[in-house]
């Protein structure tokens, strides 16, 4: 299975981030087409037909989301780009911004036109200093050419783009927390309903889209929805390609773009070159740290949203984390739960208290003070968080816990019982035997 490159095709072009290079490769043609010959509804229809889905993690159909913005609202509408790429194991948006910022900007222009927005924000995580600078440069280039500002491309359509840098909270990648943060408030997710499409930034209708999602839009418009949808074969409700961030114990970690009918095995073994040191594969998290883990024998699954859901996990943000046979699942999960406890915003009870409690249990077990019943308690705490929180962070913390502990229960029991890892013991036994 070869890679299919839509966005990453340009990654290797020298100076692909510069507007002249971008235009030489057909950049800013789609927006011209849109402004000249398409109505907003036609754009939305086109994107709907392309089966493009939100690639930030939720996988919501992008065109449908745009269609939710009320046409008759007197309030201004906003497009907000979620560039708060914080999901552990995910780093594709950074590459998109660094390599093809103009693809994002063009996508933003098309999306803004489709929903009737004249102001768009890019909310970028504070740690992305270079990407933020790259975007600033790209915006300046576009402005200089009259592609942003008043009457862009010589039409009567106005669009301003602003960059807002986050302050380092994972929760601000959740769209309503992001909006609060954008408004200068504490990054706490909002209660839904109302959804951002009706009450979003500054109480106005707002669409929040991921960087990668929007970057596909110019290509969809330029080459047609049918072309994009057909890139993925046999996947009914998702089309096109997406960029997978592959990390962990593989030979060639990095970003790989592939259609959604690609299997996880192909990504791990074909694109990433297999397991480092030719060890055995133990487990893979297919979509960023919040997704349930898959065991080595479960990776013949296609990477489309629906198939991964059927396999009991999620496509998430496309962050493929690969673990070889020497990985301690207890340590891995402890690391993950530390992350979620640290990043829990503290607003609602189950997530605030549950993650904090889990951390203390894991730390206690790690110190060798495990107690009978700990594994059951861990599972039940995670289940008590699941589905009962304001935002998905609670689920994001609970899902890896439930999947790790269910699928590798023996390892956890061993840690609780013996106060150390069975991997070390095994290695010792092997050493003694030889």
């Amino acid at each position, binding site marked *: 299975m070869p890679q299919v490159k839509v966005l990453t095709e340009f990654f290797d072009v020298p100076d692909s981030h510069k507007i002249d290079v971008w235009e030489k490769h057909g950049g800013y043609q789609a927006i011209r087409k849109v402004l000249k010959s398409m109505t907003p509804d036609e754009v939305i229809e086109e994107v709907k037909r392309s089966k493009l889905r939100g690639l930030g993690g939720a996988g919501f159909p992008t065109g449908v989301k745009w269609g939710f913005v009320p046409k008759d609202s007197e309030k201004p509408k906003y497009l907000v780009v979620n560039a708060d790429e914080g999901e552990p194991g995910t780093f594709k948006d950074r590459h998109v911004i660094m390599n093809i910022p103009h693809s994002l900007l063009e996508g933003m222009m098309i999306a803004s036109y489709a929903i009737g927005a004249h102001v768009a924000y890019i909310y970028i995580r504070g740690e992305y200093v270079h990407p933020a600078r790259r975007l600033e440069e790209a915006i300046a280039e576009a402005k200089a050419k009259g592609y942003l500002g008043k009457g862009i491309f010589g039409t009567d359509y106005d669009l301003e783009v602003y960059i807002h840098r986050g302050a380092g*909270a994972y*929760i601000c990648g959740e769209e309503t927390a992001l909006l609060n943060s954008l408004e200068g408030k*504490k990054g706490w997710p909002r*209660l839904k309903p109302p959804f951002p499409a009706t009450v979003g930034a500054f109480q106005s209708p707002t669409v929040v889209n991921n960087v990668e999602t929007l970057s596909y839009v110019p290509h969809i418009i330029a080459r047609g929805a049918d072309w994009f949808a057909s890139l993925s074969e046999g996947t009914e409700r998702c089309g096109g390609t997406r960029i997978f961030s592959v990390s962990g114990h593989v030979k060639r970690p990095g970003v790989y773009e592939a259609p959604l009918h690609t299997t996880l095995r192909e990504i791990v073994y074909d694109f990433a070159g297999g397991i480092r040191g030719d060890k055995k594969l133990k487990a893979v998290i297919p979509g960023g740290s919040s997704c349930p883990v898959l065991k080595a024998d479960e990776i013949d699954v296609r990477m489309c949203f629906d198939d991964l859901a059927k396999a009991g996990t999620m496509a998430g943000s496309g962050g493929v984390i690969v673990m070889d046979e020497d990985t301690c699942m207890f340590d891995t999960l402890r690391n993950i739960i530390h992350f979620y*406890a*640290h*990043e*829990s*915003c*503290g*607003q*609602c*009870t*189950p997530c*605030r*208290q*549950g*993650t*904090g*409690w889990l951390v*203390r*249990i894991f730390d*206690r077990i790690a110190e060798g003070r495990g*107690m009978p*019943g700990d594994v059951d*308690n861990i599972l039940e705490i995670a289940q*008590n968080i699941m*589905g*009962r*929180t*304001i935002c998905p962070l609670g689920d994001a913390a609970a899902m890896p816990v439930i999947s790790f502990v269910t699928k590798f229960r023996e390892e956890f029991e061993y840690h609780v019982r013996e106060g150390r890892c069975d991997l070390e013991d095994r290695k010792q036994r092997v050493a003694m035997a030889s």
Partner: protein
Amino acid sequence: MPTLKIDGKEVWVEPGTNVLEAAKKLGIEIPHYCYHPALKVAGSCRMCLVEIEGMPKLQISCHTKAADGMVVWTNTEKVRKARQAVLEFLLVDHPLDCPVCDQAGECYLQIYYMEHGLYKSRLRENKIKKEKAKPIGKHIILDQERCILCSRCVRFTREVTKTFELGIFNRGNRSVVDLYPGISELQNRYQGNLADICPVGALTDRNFRFQTRVWYLQQAKSICPGCSRGCNIEVDYNISREYKAGGRRIPRIRPRHNPKVNGYWMCDDGRYGYKYVDALDRILLPRRLDEGEPVELSWPAAYTMAADLLSEATKEGADKVGVLLSAKMTNEELFAARKLFSSLGVSRIGFRVEPKEPGYEDDLLIKADKNPNTKGAELLELGLGAGKSDVSALLDAAEAGEVDTVVIFNEDLSKSSEAERAEAVLPKLGRVIYVGTNWNATAAKADLVLPMATFVEQEGTFTNFEGRVQRFWKAVEPLGESRTGLSILAGLATALGLEPVSENAEEVFAELAEQVPAFFRGSATRNLVSTGNWLRARLGRR
């Protein structure tokens, strides 16, 4: 009107009502922490989760609008498990210091745990340490460890007082409620409410702290006498453990919900202004001055003396007598006093006392008029018709020699705008009778002092600034030998040989309602529900 089914029972509610309130209408209590009917929905405690048919996940009932045909279950296995889990989570970092916590007995962690708790601790870890016993305002102390971060207090300072002193800082289970940087203490006049709305022991009242256990308290419905708003209050009194709260019978006062008067709130001035009822300066026995020396009297002797003084004075001419009633007296007392003194022929019956400085007023609850019953006195057509200060008119008459006897009811003239003149004129008068609750400069110089009961020691009605007649009930017996205003007037009437006056406030109100057209004709006090009755005068149907 959406009609929905909750636990198998049908109920219709106003559009926009949430499921929690709809259930309340059916008498079904859905446990909750962060939801408060007077504050915006936070939806963060996750205690009020319910099962709604057709929705895969449990929903928070505070943020779910009741919809037509909705089928809600509030007590299924799934819901009970969720509540149990939330309670377990809340207690993970809660110090469980109930034995030394003032909230114990009225703490919603305790209350809900009794019903929904797990009763088996699975916590083997250490709890997180946060700041304890931190005074954050004149009346409020904060314990961050007990806090369950429901954000009610934060929303109160944002939405009700709009003073924005409190916020939630930090993240995850390190989150704490605290004052914003740069603010040294709460700056609003309503901070006592924070202790009320805090569902746990995180915010406690410095006045009530360590005074008594709440289960020793009994409640009487009452009306705050602090200003003309007439906030509905609950008087918490303790008569079973006399040694508690330093011997104070009333350790605290709390607002009682009345949507038409005070909502859920009351101000700090009112809340902490009741302390005179148990103060050491209460007048406990009738007393007369004999050549400047105080002599304590029995009530019969006091009545005889008062009757003698009044008869002597009226013999010289009823014009010579001036009576200063008080807008702190009940409608019944004012009515009975008007009747008694009118039948003696006295026409100088005033009540207006102007304070030295105008009272504070805001647009939430606090009124500038610090008397609870000015409107009532006005509707009884009392007053000398001389503007803001009947005291000035009386003093004018006294200086002109037209009045040489005054009866003062519970007004300390040394605190009025006429303090200096009163100090000069009163000693020169022939006879001064003072009827009041506490010793003060005016009482000290009176020839005869009669001890009167305070508002918690009697029942009656006040008419608030908008003409709402509100009833209050008795909490405790009058202190010492003090008697209610009606009782004193009844004793005087008997001693003077006048038509008897009833000591029963309900009977007096019935008569008052009969005779004073401004009061709703035929409305007896028993008809005055807690929201009060509008006066016919206000409705313009005299």
